[in-house]
C-alpha cells in the first residue's frame, strides 16, 4: 500500500532536513513544475487528479485554484494561505504532517503558489502547535538558502515569500475568511461571500486558502500524475487520507490509508477495536462538527458518508461507547462551540448558548419534556443559510443526529430526573 504523505515520517524521530528530504526524492516535483510546466498546467493536473479539500468542507481543489485571476492584468500580489489552524475537536492529522515532514509542506506551498502565481504565502499555525511552527520556519529557511524559495526561485524569476504566522488562539481563525481577518489584525469574524477569497481575499487581493493535508498531496500529484492519484483511493475519489480515531478504542491514532477505507476497518484493524469492557455505539466520522452515525460498513469518503447522513469532514473519528452518556457527549461539544463562537451572527452566539443551557438542565436532571422541542428547533434554526459561516451549522450536526439516534436517552434523563450514566 502506498503512503505518499507519510512516507518520510518516522514516529519519535526528527523530521528530514533539506538534504534528507531531497535524498528521499523531495523537491523533484518543484523542479519539474517550475522548470518545465506552465502554472496553468499544474492547476489542470491537480483538477484532473480529483483532489478535494481535507480541511472539512471537501471543495474540489483544482476548481478553487481556477477561480484566481491569472495573466498580466491580475491584481498583485496574490496570496496563498495554508490553513494550519487545526482546532476541530478530535482532529490531529495536520500536526502529524507538519511535525513529521515539514519540507513536504514547504514544497507543496511552492508548487501551489507557482500554479496560481502567488507571491506571498502565510502558513497560519495555531498557537498550540509551536513545534510545527518552529520546524516549518527551519524548513523555509533551508529552502530559501537552497534557492527553492524566496527570490528568483531556481533562476526562473518566480518569487515566493513564505511566512509562518502563529495564531493567538481561536477556533474561528480556521474559518476561511476568519483566517483572513485574523491576518489583517482584525477579529476573526467571518466575511460575507461573495466576493470569495480567490477574487478578493487578504488585503483585498486574490487569495487561495487550502488546508495542510490537501496541499501535501500536490507534490505527489505532480510527480506521479493524476491517474496514479485517482488509483490510490479505493472509491475513485483520489488519493489517500490521514484517518484518525479516538475515544475508548484500544489504539487511538492516525493512519494514512486509501481514501474510501471502510469505517469498520479503521475501528477494528487500525484502532484495534474497542477497549475491553466497552461496546461501540456510534461515532462522529470527521470531527466534532459532523453527524453521528451507527453504521460501520461505510466507505469513509465524500460520496458514501452522506448516504448514512454524515460526511467525511476532517476524517478523524470520535467514538461514542456504551458507557458514555450521549447527552454529556453532545453537551461537551456544544460548550466548545458556544465558547468559540465569535459573536458575529445572532443565531450562533445566542442559539448555541441556549442549547448549552438546555442540555445542562437535561444532564443535571432538570430537563422538561418541551426541552427536546426547543433543541429540535435550534437544529433547524442554526442550519446552513442563517449565519455567515459554518460554525453554527456544524455545531448542530452532532446535536441533531443525537436527538434522532439517542432520543430515548434524552427522554430517560428528563423522565428519571437524572443522568442514568452517573
Amino acid at each position: 500500500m502506498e503512503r505518499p504523505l507519510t512516507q518520510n515520517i518516522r514516529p519519535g524521530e526528527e523530521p528530514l532536513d533539506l538534504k534528507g528530504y531531497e535524498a528521499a526524492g523531495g523537491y523533484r516535483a518543484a523542479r519539474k513544475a517550475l522548470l518545465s510546466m506552465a502554472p496553468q498546467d499544474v492547476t489542470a493536473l491537480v483538477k484532473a487528479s480529483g483532489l478535494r479539500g481535507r480541511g472539512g468542507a471537501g471543495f474540489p481543489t483544482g476548481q478553487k485554484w481556477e477561480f484566481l485571476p491569472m495573466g498580466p492584468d491580475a491584481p498583485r500580489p496574490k496570496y496563498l494561505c495554508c490553513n494550519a489552524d487545526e482546532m476541530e475537536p478530535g482532529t490531529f492529522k495536520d500536526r502529524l504532517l507538519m511535525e513529521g515532514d515539514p519540507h513536504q509542506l514547504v514544497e507543496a506551498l511552492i508548487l501551489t503558489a507557482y500554479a496560481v502565481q502567488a507571491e506571498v504565502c502565510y502558513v497560519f499555525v495555531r498557537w498550540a502547535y509551536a513545534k510545527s511552527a518552529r520546524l516549518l520556519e527551519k524548513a523555509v529557511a533551508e529552502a530559501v538558502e537552497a534557492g527553492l524559495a524566496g527570490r528568483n526561485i531556481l533562476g526562473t524569476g518566480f518569487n515566493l515569500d513564505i511566512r509562518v504566522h502563529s495564531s493567538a488562539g481561536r477556533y474561528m481563525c480556521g474559518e476561511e475568511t476568519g483566517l483572513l481577518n485574523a491576518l489583517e489584525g482584525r477579529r476573526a469574524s467571518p466575511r460575507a461571500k461573495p466576493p470569495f477569497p480567490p477574487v478578493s481575499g487578504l488585503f483585498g487581493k486574490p487569495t487561495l486558502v487550502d488546508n495542510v493535508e490537501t496541499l501535501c498531496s500536490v507534490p505527489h500529484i505532480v510527480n506521479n500524475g493524476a491517474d496514479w492519484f485517482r488509483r490510490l483511493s479505493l472509491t475513485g475519489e483520489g488519493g489517500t487520507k490521514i484517518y484518525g480515531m479516538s475515544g475508548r478504542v484500544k489504539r487511538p491514532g492516525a493512519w494514512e490509508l486509501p481514501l474510501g477505507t471502510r469505517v469498520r476497518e479503521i475501528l477494528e484493524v487500525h484502532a484495534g477495536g474497542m477497549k475491553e469492557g466497552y461496546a461501540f455505539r456510534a461515532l462522529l466520522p470527521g470531527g466534532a462538527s459532523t453527524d453521528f452515525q451507527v453504521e460501520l460498513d461505510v466507505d469513509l469518503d465524500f460520496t458514501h458518508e452522506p448516504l448514512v447522513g454524515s460526511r467525511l469532514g476532517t476524517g478523524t473519528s470520535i467514538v461514542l461507547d456504551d458507557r458514555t452518556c450521549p447527552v454529556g457527549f453532545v453537551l461537551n461539544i456544544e460548550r466548545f462551540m458556544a465558547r468559540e463562537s465569535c459573536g458575529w451572527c445572532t443565531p450562533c452566539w445566542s442559539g448555541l448558548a441556549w442549547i448549552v443551557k438546555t442540555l445542562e438542565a437535561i444532564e443535571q436532571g432538570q430537563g422538561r419534556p418541551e426541552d427536546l422541542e426547543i433543541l429540535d428547533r435550534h437544529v433547524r434554526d442554526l442550519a446552513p443559510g442563517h449565519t455567515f459561516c459554518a460554525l453554527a451549522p456544524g455545531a448542530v450536526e452532532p446535536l441533531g443526529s443525537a436527538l434522532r439516534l439517542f432520543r430515548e436517552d434524552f427522554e430517560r434523563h428528563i423522565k428519571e430526573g437524572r443522568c442514568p450514566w452517573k
Partner: protein
Amino acid sequence: MITEDDRREIEAAAARVPVRRAAAVEALQVIQKRNGWVSDEDLRAAAGLVGMTVTELDGLASFYSMIFRKPVGRHVILFCDSICCWIQGYEKIVDGLCSRLGIRPGETDREGRFTLLPSPCLGACDHAPAMMVDGDLHGDLTPEGIEAILERYK
C-alpha cells in the same frame, strides 16, 4: 513598560505587512513573551505602534484566548476540556490539579507559580487526557502522574 527591544521587534513586524495593524497579534505576542501578560500600559504603547486605537487593540486582545490581559503565574497550565479528553475523564485530572494547587480554573496559586486555564482541543486526542504547560505537551495523564510533571516547573 514596553522595552526598546519590544519596540524594534514590533516595528520590524509592522514593516513586513501592507498595513500596520496586520502586525497587531505579533505585537501583543512580543509583549507577552517578555512580560507573561499584556498590561494596560503596554497595550496603549502597542496600539500606537500598530496604528490602532487602544479600544480596537483591546477588542482584538480580548478576542484571543492566548493573549492574557491579567497577570499569570510563572507557568501556565492549559488543560484540554474538549470531547476526547472528556471521554477519557479529564475532570479527574483537573480535580487533582485544583486540590494540589489550591486554586480553581482561571486562578493563579499563592506563590505565583502556576495559572490553571481550560483550553479547547489540543490536537492530542490519541493521548487524551492531555494538557500543556508553557508550551510542552503532556498526554496520557493520570491523577497519580501529575505531581511528577509539576515538579519540572519551578
